[in-house]
């Protein structure tokens, strides 16, 4: 019932340097629960070196706020990966 009304959707495709980094980003993001699952859904997956974020929401506003928070977290992950990855 609930998911049928989540008709505002968006898919983000975020390229990382390596497949491993994309997978790390997915695992970092996955654990956090969504505050209002009836209004907002998100799934994380990877395609090659890309992180794929699929979002569905009840309206544009909720979608915007939710996506903005996710992007904030992804920025931290990207910066961490860039600056703090182990030197080969």
């Amino acid at each position, binding site marked *: 019932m609930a998911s049928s009304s989540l008709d505002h959707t968006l898919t983000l495709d975020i390229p990382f340097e390596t497949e491993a980094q994309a997978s790390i980003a997915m695992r970092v993001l*996955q*654990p956090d629960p969504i505050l209002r699952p009836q209004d907002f859904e998100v799934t994380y997956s990877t395609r090659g070196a890309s992180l794929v974020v699929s979002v569905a929401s009840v309206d544009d506003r909720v979608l915007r706020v939710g996506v903005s928070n996710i992007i904030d977290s992804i920025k931290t992950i990207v910066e961490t990966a860039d600056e*703090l990855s182990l030197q080969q």
Partner: protein
Amino acid sequence: MVNLNTVPPRNNRDYYIAIGLEGSANKLGVGVIKCSRSAHMASGDNSHNCDVEILSNIRNTYVTPPGEGFLPRDTARHHRNWCVRIIKQALEEAEIKNPHLDIDVICFTRGPGMGAPLHSVAIAARTCSLLWDVPLVGVNHCVGHIEMGREITKAENPVVLYVSGGNTQVIAYSENRYRIFGETLDVAIGNCLDRFARTLKIPNAPSPGYNIEQLAKNCKNKDSLIELSYTVKGMDLSMSGILAYIDTLAKDLFRGNKKNRLLFDKETGEPKVTVEDLCYSLQENLFAMLVEITERAMAHVNATQVLIVGGVGSNTRLQEMMGQMCKDRANGKVHATDERFCIDNGVMIAQAGLLQYRMGDYVKDLSETVVTQKFRTDEVYVSWRE
């Protein structure tokens, strides 16, 4: 029997290295500690005496303009902006070249605190853990303060007064938990001082409480006091009424409300009371209440030591009053940690987290790393003490 050496250090080292990340309020802190794996830690109750060496302790505080408090969203943004830079700086200062080999555990604050700032730091902690393949430990912020305080002061079993922006608790250890004997029934002491500082429109740097303390020191009329209610309820206390009342006084003083006879002379209309007097009376009253509930807990559990932790613990007047109480009470000793460790920092998270890690208690699945705003001190199972 407590064995703190169950998990061996990585890379065949004879010492542990832990990094701690703290960001539950407006302070972002990262610290790296080193701790030898000495034989005496394998048995007995030595968690207060781990020979910790602090390799780095970096902090960055989000300071708001006078009259403003810090909001979760803005604080989280501050932490995100600084987090990686601070971690990098802490690693460099600690001369960590290869975190995969040189670090045993990444410790981060899981709560209590403001959700958004906690989360922003947890994201960085998880990423580091996966990048470096180093285990994670989620730490209770209050337990971090307690363990750091015990290590710094070598206080074995103190009654802990935890006083900060969000917490006012009297805690004592019993049967593997830090149990709360008394606490505020409404606002926290630090919050109370912060809010009064906002009414006074005094600067938030270095901290509102520090500036109130300086004003109180400059009070010219220490022989008299503005009468405030004294609201100790058993081992608990209430502060919201006192705050509301003194806030009204301050506002009347600024507005020049001559009808307030307590503030203005009936004949001349001259003010009888200064901002310094208000700060002095507020501190004297609130701190007397804090010391009293601490003494009550000491009497209840037969303790002779007190440890003050949390940001308000760096107030010298509070330390002085606590010291006097302990002195009069069977020559007990007060152990105020020094300011570097009273104020939120990463080292304390590393210290508590490392103890937990050495008992084999670390994150097995990232779902255990979800942060929580509400996380009571007595929820943590303290495996590292008898």
